[in-house]
Each structure stands twice: as structure tokens, then as C-alpha cells.
């Protein structure tokens, strides 16, 4: 309610540059570029190398992938806290069957099992929100606990090894200097962006986020749209599970722990409004990148661990504050 007016209007009046700058994801982009430049100056030898750049991108890839789905969920005024434990549960599920069959199960089946488990969790979230009418926070909080438990039950608490080539390539391979993970991320982000902006279903997601009653009266199946966004996020969690298993060659029940808050932060820093109905899916990549570059920066500059935590908090606040102040002022 409180934070939603005026930006666009303000933007319209002035030139294209100002218009661009008024977009909420721009604060994050400027911060990102600033950090990048500062790091290039401070660590010219180790920071702006191809390797390091791809290391950074690979690291925030999972966050960016999940933030695409989280962005869509937040646009419908929802939230998904379960995403981390869904990763753990899906990774455990697929590899468990692989191990149980003494690794005789064809790769494609394992892949489908992992993606399927993620999607199933997403579907459960979606139905709880749309059909049962639970507040998304509560539905996904519950499913977070369930997912964690399922992962533990399947793995019995310790990692399941899984190391066929196909999955290693998927999670850890390179095409030229570019990690496969980064390519997967890029593809998902582009598809996500096109989906949100150029398909009817994408448009309907925004419509539901603007006003569910109005969407219903416009012939949009609101329940279906709500279910869909959680299913998408569940599927993406499955993709991340695949990438993680591929990267680590094992499925660990601690996979994904604590991701949810990072992912939500990335989406919001990237300009997705928590009041729903607006936001640019490309922005989430900027949000994820900003959080990703920070970790690398901390190591490059050898910031003490205790301070890292403080600085991370301040950056999250700072990145969104500028935009909030602007909106708040416009609303006066």
C-alpha cells in the first residue's frame, strides 16, 4: 500500500536518462558498477581476470536462477521460503534412486526425478496458496520444514555420491571459458524475461499481482496463475539441485540451506516490489550479481568474517533504501 506511487510518472516527464534512472533496479546496477570499478582499481591483478569474472558469475548463477522464479512469485504478492530445502529434497530424491539401483538408472531418469521432485514441491506450495488460501509465508514456511525433513530422511543425514559424466558437465563443465552453469542461468533468465513480458500468461501474472479480483473478472484463472508461479520456482529449484549435484558430485542434505533469504533479497534489490504487481525480471540478475560480487570482494580484500556479516546487511539496506526514499518522496 504504502510504497507504490509516482516513480513512473516522475520518470515520464524528463529525458530518457532520467527515466532510466528512475527504474528501481538502477540503484542496484549503479552500485554493482561502482563496486566493480573500485575492485578493478584496488585489485588490478586478481580481480578483473576472465577466470575471476566467471567465478563470480558462476557463483551467483543459482541465486539468479531462483530469483527469476522468486520475482514472479513476489509479483503476485507471494513469497517462497521453501526454495532452499526443495533443492536439498530434490537432489536427495534423484540420487537416492540412482544409488539404490547401483547407479544403473539412466541419467535421463535421474534428471527427471530431480526436476520432478522440485516441481512437485512447487505444486504443493502453489495449491496450498491458491486452493487452500494459506498466506504464502506460512505455506512455504511449512513446506520448508517438510522439504528439509524429506531430504534428511532420504539421505539419512550424509551425502549421496553421484558422479556420472553428464551431470558433472552440467554442473561443473565449461564451454570455452564459460561455465555451463552460467549458460543455464543466462538461458533461464532470458526465457523468464520473455515469458514475463511477451506472453499472455506472463502478463496475467502481473495482472493478478495488481489486483486478484480484477484479474478474476477479466477471465483470468487466478488460482491457476498463483499455482503456476510456485510450480515454476519448484522446477527452478530442481534445476539448481541438478547443477549442485553436478558441481559437487553428490547430494548433500544441507544443500540450499538459507538460500531463501538471499534469493528474496536479490529479487527485491533487483527492483521487484514487495507489494506486488511490478518489477522487471532482468533486474533480478542485477540483484543477484550485486550480492555475488560482494562475497568475492570480501575475499579479495580479506575483510574479516565478522565485518562481512555487518557489511552485507548494510548493503542490502542501502541498495533498496535509495529507491524507497525516492518513492516515499514522490508519494508525499
Amino acid at each position, binding site marked *: 500500500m504504502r510504497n507504490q506511487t509516482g516513480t513512473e510518472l516522475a520518470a515520464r516527464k524528463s529525458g530518457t536518462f532520467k527515466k532510466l534512472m528512475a527504474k528501481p533496479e538502477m540503484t542496484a546496477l549503479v552500485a554493482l558498477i561502482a563496486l566493480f570499478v573500485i575492485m578493478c582499481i584496488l585489485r588490478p591483478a586478481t580481480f578483473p581476470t576472465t577466470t*575471476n569474472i566467471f567465478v563470480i558469475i558462476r557463483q551467483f548463477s543459482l541465486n539468479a536462477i531462483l530469483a527469476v522464479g522468486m520475482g514472479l512469485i513476489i509479483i503476485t504478492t507471494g513469497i517462497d521460503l521453501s526454495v532452499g530445502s526443495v533443492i536439498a529434497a530434490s537432489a536427495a530424491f534423484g540420487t537416492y534412486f540412482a544409488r539404490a539401483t547401483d547407479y544403473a538408472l539412466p541419467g535421463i531418469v535421474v534428471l527427471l526425478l530431480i526436476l520432478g521432485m522440485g516441481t512437485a514441491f512447487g505444486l504443493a506450495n502453489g495449491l496450498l496458496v491458491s486452493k487452500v488460501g494459506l498466506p504464502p509465508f506460512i505455506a512455504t514456511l511449512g513446506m520448508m520444514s517438510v522439504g528439509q525433513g524429506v531430504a534428511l530422511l532420504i539421505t539419512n*543425514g*550424509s551425502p549421496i555420491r553421484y558422479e556420472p559424466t553428464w551431470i558433472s558437465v552440467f554442473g561443473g563443465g565449461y564451454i570455452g571459458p564459460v561455465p555451463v552453469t552460467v549458460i543455464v542461468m543466462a538461458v533461464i533468465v532470458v526465457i523468464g524475461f520473455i515469458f514475463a513480458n511477451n506472453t499472455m500468461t506472463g502478463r496475467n501474472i502481473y495482472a493478478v499481482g495488481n489486483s486478484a479480483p480484477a484479474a478474476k473478472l477479466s477471465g483470468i484463472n487466478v488460482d491457476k496463475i498463483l499455482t503456476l508461479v510456485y510450480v515454476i520456482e519448484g522446477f527452478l529449484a530442481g534445476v539448481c539441485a541438478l547443477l549442485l549435484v553436478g558441481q559437487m558430485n*553428490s547430494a*548433500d542434505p544441507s544443500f540450499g540451506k538459507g538460500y531463501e533469504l538471499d534469493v528474496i533479497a536479490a529479487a527485491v534489490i533487483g527492483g521487484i516490489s514487495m507489494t506486488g504487481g511490478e518489477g522487471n525480471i532482468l533486474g533480478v540478475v542485477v540483484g543477484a550479481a550485486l550480492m555475488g560480487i560482494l562475497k568475492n570482494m*570480501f575475499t579479495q580484500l*580479506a575483510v574479516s568474517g565478522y565485518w562481512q556479516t555487518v557489511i552485507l546487511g548494510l548493503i542490502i539496506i542501502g541498495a533498496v533504501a535509495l529507491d524507497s526514499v525516492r518513492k516515499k518522496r514522490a508519494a508525499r
Partner: protein
Amino acid sequence: TEPSTEASAGASTEASGEASTEASSDAEPAGDFTPAADLEIPAGKTPLSLPVDQAAEEPIKIATIMVQNNPFGAAVLVGQNWAKEALADRNCTVDCQSVEDFDPQKWASIIENDIAAGYDAICFFGISEALQPVTDKGVEAGILMYTFNTEPGNNSKRQAYYGQSGTYGGEECGKKLEELMGGEGKYAIITGDFTVLGHEERRLGARSILDANDKLELVAEVENNDKAEEAYTQTQNILTANPDLKGLYVTAGGPSGAAKALEDMGLQDQVMLVCHDVLEETAPYIASGTIKGCMDQDPFNQGAQPVIDAFNQLVAGEGPKEEVNWYEGVMATPDTVKELFPELF
């Protein structure tokens, strides 16, 4: 608090030795239970205590509490479950409980619940000094409070302790790392959680050795929250920032992530990786030579011994040999690991 190597080594051989002799001599069929001598023992494990061959007259209830969700926890659970099986036909139930993280309040609550639920003995991971009051409360209520892995404070009333000193383990790893690095060069530490006592003891233990050498330069200290994926990420970050890194110490969970990252970057020969716990997760990397040193702390016995000792104390008054039972542990290396831990291969 230096553990006396002889004492712990002595205690272990003595305990197992004595237990087995006792089992054979005490062969009278007191009930329908498997005598200690006939107990099935998991491959590669050596229980340091065996149950007395006697069934409890009144039913006995023992609780064990451990962190779930990391491989070390799972390994301890193997020991606990073995003890549970071994005692099942001796009129003793063992409930293996677990907590999802290291929040002292949650641990204190569980222990309190156990005290209220009337357990005869509680064997738990003493995650923090903050558990001292509740530990003492259990002792005052007449319950056997045996702790493992970490002491719940320096002067708690717990009757017995089992495990490796965190500081000792850290020092051993520090020494190993210094040796592997040839006494000079850059190194980094990936620690589990700055807020977890056991992790801090190891980190500071290693630092006490490494800081003493001026030629060693610490370039990064980061958390991985016990997660392998995070260790992977942090290792990559550390190495891109310091391509000439020579040593890496992982204090807690997820060392396989660091090892995987080194292999993926082809740096396993340049960077000396030292970590803890020889488990399914780490064994392949030790064997392949990526992990150059891995300190084991006998999770099986941390799980099993306190439970068995508690039972023995309750039915026969023949409890722990020592109040403090140090596990020296072994430092597995690529050359010795298959020999020391055949069950993992």
C-alpha cells in the same frame, strides 16, 4: 587441557579388552540377550566399550542428542544406533534425538524435556558453555549426563566426557598444514560458523600454531556454514584472489566442497588441503590425494561409548573408565587412509 595420549590410548585398549574378557567370563544366561562377545560390530569400527552381559531389571531409558544434517552427525548416529541395537534386548531403550542447528536454547530445551521425560541417562554433544546450567540441573536430578565432542563449559557437573579436544584437533591440523607447506607461504581458513564453539576452538587452535611462524601468511578466514557448496564457492574466491595460495584448512563440515573446487581448478597439487573427519564424504578425496591430511575423531565411539558406559553404570555400576576420555584420533593421509579406514573403500 592437553590430552594425555597414553591415557586415552590406554583407556581405549583397556576398555575394549576388559569388556570382552568380562563378556566371556560372565557367560551365565541372565536373559534373552546377545552376549557382548557375539555382538555384530560394523565393519572397520572398534567399540571402546562393550555392554555388560546383564539385562536391566527395571526398564532403562537413555537419550542421545546430536546435530542432524551433516555427515559427521550421521557418523555419530551410526555409533548411537549400534549401541541402541546392542542394548535393545537388555531391557534398555535408547532414543536418538537430533537438533537441526547449534542454537543453545534449542539444545537446552531438548535436554530439559528429556529431564522431565524421566530418562535415566542423557548423552549429548555439549555444543556450548551455555548448556552448563541445564547439564548441572540434570546431574542434580540424579540423571547421568555424559557429554561428547565438546565440553559444556569448563566446570560443568557432567559425570563423563568423550571426544577430542577442539583445540587439540586444531593444533594437530595446524602442525600438519605447516609441515605440508614446508613452513612458508599463504594459507586460508574456511570455518564452519563463527558462532559455534567447537569450530572456533579448532580455528584458534590451528592459528596458535600457524601464527607462531612468520613465514606463513593468513590471507582469508571465511564461513561456510558447514555447507559443501559454500566451501566450493569460497575456495574459488580465495584462489582467484590469491593464485599463489599454498595451504587451506577447513575446520568443520563440507571439506569435500573445497576438495572438489581444487580438483576443478587443477590446483590439488599446489594447495595443501587439511581438514577433519574421515567419512564417506571425504574418503575419496583423501585417497585421490586432494586432501593431504584429515584428522579423524572417532565419531563411532563418540556415538556409542557414552551410551554403553551409561548402561553399564546403571545396571552394574561399571561406568566410564575416566571422567574425561580423550580420543587422540588419527591424521589420515593419502598413503594411510585405505589402511586405517578400510570400511570406506
